[in-house]
């Protein structure tokens, strides 16, 4: 029943999308100044049908309707309701439907909210966006239909992989999708802007909120993803430079560059073509990321069910999209004259852009290099974290410096004032204190430390100044502060992290440099859908003689039969104590990984601060509009 209904809704949505493309195209050729009501109505109808089809799939999951192959493969009746719901997008087919929903949602929102725009521009954006919708709907229907039927109807589903039963993982795909797919709307808008030749200011105004929204969600999505990796993978790391993680980071770099360039475009005419290139590049990177993840050509710790035919489809789409964009760009892009003085805000923003593009290039090369080498020479390699750290770290120094000094320069040109720099002195003092505490010998790391402190102090100072002047650019301050803190805490975390791997039997004691770890007890428990072996560990600090109890688990789930190792993490404000145990030989020897990770909560908080800046900018903009 639900299967048929879902299929019907999808087909209707596809027909409506064709209609929308047809009418937009016809409308583009007329000389009317207003978009006819008809188009608004069709767009609403399209939103209704796509949203309904998603709700039907959601319902099928909640009601455990196993006549849908998709529900059968990914759900189970005794799964908690929360994971039944998140199961909807926890698989390829469902997530594609979510992807389409976001495309359509952004298409209608753009049509309804941007009321004061050029008609041709709006209609063309709608046209391009709905071509995207059609392509993905066809992909869904022909290759990845979440509503395919199963006969005979099974009595019970197969269950969701227990590793995926985690709140952070359940919510992070939708977040990333709003970021990934949200970038489609300014891709469409950029192409439309080229053809309709709207001026740079209206382009900036009309795409800025969408860039901010997608950037915010992308940032939070990446954050939640790394929190999941930290808690669930049991390695104690939060970023592995894994291809899947990289493919969410690559669009983020471009979005960040775009965000900054739009600030220029809003006020001045420069960078028009550049903003368009970045808009196109963001969505291209999002689709490339999706291709890399879904086609299975990369090796990753995060496995997705992969299928070459899906890869082929996404790749064909990517090829058409890129060449079409290149063609449109070179046919319509205006010639620009460039005039700015060197010490202006613009220069710094352009510098920011170059850094972001450089970071993008580094990550892209690192991610694709194994693919290239395999294709050309056949040797199998993977690129390790040292590559990224080695190449990216030195460039953090100038970036941090530019972030510190750039925002205080005026637009167009700037006269340098000389004054006794309190901020610099304060930073130097703070740096020396930290240096004496840490005694790190690497010159490079010390420079990074210093410049991150400098950035933090300067932004705090700016914060105070702007309050005095009542001229608050609070979003920039918060985001830059977040970034400074992030680098600072990653650095501290990197220096003070401890890791010990050893094997223990019940009742034994292991002494490390600073801690005494005692394996006190072992207990078996039986819980609703899994059996659990809980280890009781007593950790005591030799210096402070503070003791902690940690209880890592080995879980054996029954649907499907899967073993997971649950890390036990004792988290307080300044430091996390992290312990995982496993037992592979089925003897009484347990394998233990014991870690101490300082300032983890501060790292999460810094990223939150970073994203909050974007959100604030978005909200304050809307407030300004109303006034």
């Amino acid at each position, binding site marked *: 029943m639900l299967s048929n209904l879902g299929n019907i809704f999808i087909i209707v949505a596809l027909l409506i999308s064709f209609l929308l493309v047809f009418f937009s195209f016809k409308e583009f050729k007329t000389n009317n100044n207003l978009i006819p009501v008809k188009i608004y109505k069709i767009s609403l109808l399209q939103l209704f049908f796509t949203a309904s089809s998603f709700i039907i799939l959601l319902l099928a999951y909640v009601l455990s309707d196993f006549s849908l192959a998709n529900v059968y493969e990914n759900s189970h009746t005794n799964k908690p309701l929360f994971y039944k719901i998140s199961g909807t997008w926890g698989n390829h087919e469902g997530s594609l439907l979510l992807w389409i929903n976001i495309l359509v949602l952004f298409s209608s929102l753009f049509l309804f909210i941007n009321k004061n725009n050029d008609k041709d521009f709006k209609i063309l954006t709608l046209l391009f966006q709905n071509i995207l919708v059609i392509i993905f709907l066809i992909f869904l229907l022909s290759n990845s239909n979440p509503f395919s039927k199963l006969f005979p109807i099974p009595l019970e589903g197969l269950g969701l992989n227990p590793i995926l039963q985690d709140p952070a993982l359940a919510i992070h795909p939708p977040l990333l999708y709003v970021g990934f797919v949200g970038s489609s709307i300014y891709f469409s808008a950029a192409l439309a802007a080229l053809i309709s030749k709207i001026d740079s200011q209206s382009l900036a105004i009309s795409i800025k909120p969408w860039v901010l929204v997608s950037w915010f969600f992308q940032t939070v999505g990446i954050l939640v993803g790394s929190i999941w990796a930290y808690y669930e993978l049991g390695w104690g790391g939060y970023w592995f430079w894994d291809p899947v993680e990289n493919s969410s980071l690559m669009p983020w770099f471009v979005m960040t560059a775009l965000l900054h360039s739009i600030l220029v475009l809003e006020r001045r005419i420069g960078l028009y073509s550049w903003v368009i290139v970045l808009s196109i590049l963001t969505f291209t990177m999002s689709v490339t990321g999706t291709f890399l993840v879904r086609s299975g050509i990369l090796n990753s710790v995060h496995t997705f069910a992969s299928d070459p035919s899906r890869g082929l489809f996404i790749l064909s789409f990517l090829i058409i999209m890129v060449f079409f964009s290149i063609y449109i760009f070179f046919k319509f892009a205006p010639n620009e004259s460039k005039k700015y003085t060197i010490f202006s805000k613009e220069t710094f923003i352009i510098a920011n852009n170059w850094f972001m593009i450089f970071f993008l290039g580094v990550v892209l090369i690192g991610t694709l290099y194994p693919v290239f080498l395999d294709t050309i020479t056949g040797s199998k390699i993977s690129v390790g974290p040292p590559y990224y750290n080695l190449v990216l770290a030195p460039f953090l120094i100038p970036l941090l410096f530019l972030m510190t000094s750039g925002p205080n320069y005026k637009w167009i040109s700037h006269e340098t004032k000389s004054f006794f720099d309190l901020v610099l002195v304060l930073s130097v003092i703070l740096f020396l204190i930290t240096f004496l505490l840490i005694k790190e010998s690497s010159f490079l790391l010390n420079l990074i430390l210093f410049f991150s402190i400098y950035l933090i102090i300067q932004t705090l100072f700016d914060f105070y100044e702007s309050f005095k002047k009542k001229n608050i650019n609070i979003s920039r301050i918060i985001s830059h502060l977040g970034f400074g803190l992030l680098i600072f805490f990653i650095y501290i975390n990197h220096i003070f992290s401890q890791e010990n791997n050893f094997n223990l039997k019940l009742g034994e004691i292991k002494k490390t440099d600073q801690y005494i770890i005692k394996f006190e007890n072992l207990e078996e428990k039986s819980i609703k859908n899994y059996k659990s072996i809980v280890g009781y560990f007593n950790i005591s600090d030799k210096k402070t003689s503070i003791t902690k109890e940690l209880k890592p688990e080995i879980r054996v789930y029954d649907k*499907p039969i899967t073993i997971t190792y649950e890390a036990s993490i004792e988290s307080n404000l300044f430091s996390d104590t992290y312990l995982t145990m496993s037992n592979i030989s089925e003897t009484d020897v347990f394998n233990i990984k014991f870690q101490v990770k300082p300032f983890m909560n501060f790292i999460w908080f810094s990223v939150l601060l970073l994203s909050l800046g974007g959100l604030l900018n978005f909200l304050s903009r809307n407030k300004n509009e109303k006034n």
Partner: protein
Amino acid sequence: MRKINYIIISILFSFLFIILYSSLDNERIYNTKDLIGKKISQVEINLFQSNETINTEEFINNEFTILNFWASWCAPCRKEHPNLVRLSKIKNIKLVGVNIKDNVESAKSFLKENGNPFDILAEDKNGKNSVNFGVYGIPETILIDSELKILKKYIGPLNIKDVNEIRKLVKK
């Protein structure tokens, strides 16, 4: 200048896409061509719910044998099952089902629900034996002739096309 940029960028992207495209082909794990014509390795497998075993050497008595690796927890297996039932109607093929890492009760109810196409039902409780057949995931299906040579190996669920292909192969 503009034209040159246009050409350079197009060429760069073309190169990138060609590599990505060929990697798509390259990485296709499911390449079983090498196996065709090879003799199947000699393995002893347990019969389902019994202490007896069967040796792959014994398949020499059959005109054609199909080895199918399945489990009740495997979704694609459920999809391909009707096709196995179709194959069981072909006279000169003996179907051997190897049940992998499964719960006995759910395996039984799976066959009750969907029909039992297998002439011989074997089990591989911990999946260790299947490694000897070069089985990577399930479902997988191997067609061998009376000389124990592999005629064809299918990775992933069998579809109607595969069934027709097998029909043709055993007709000769």
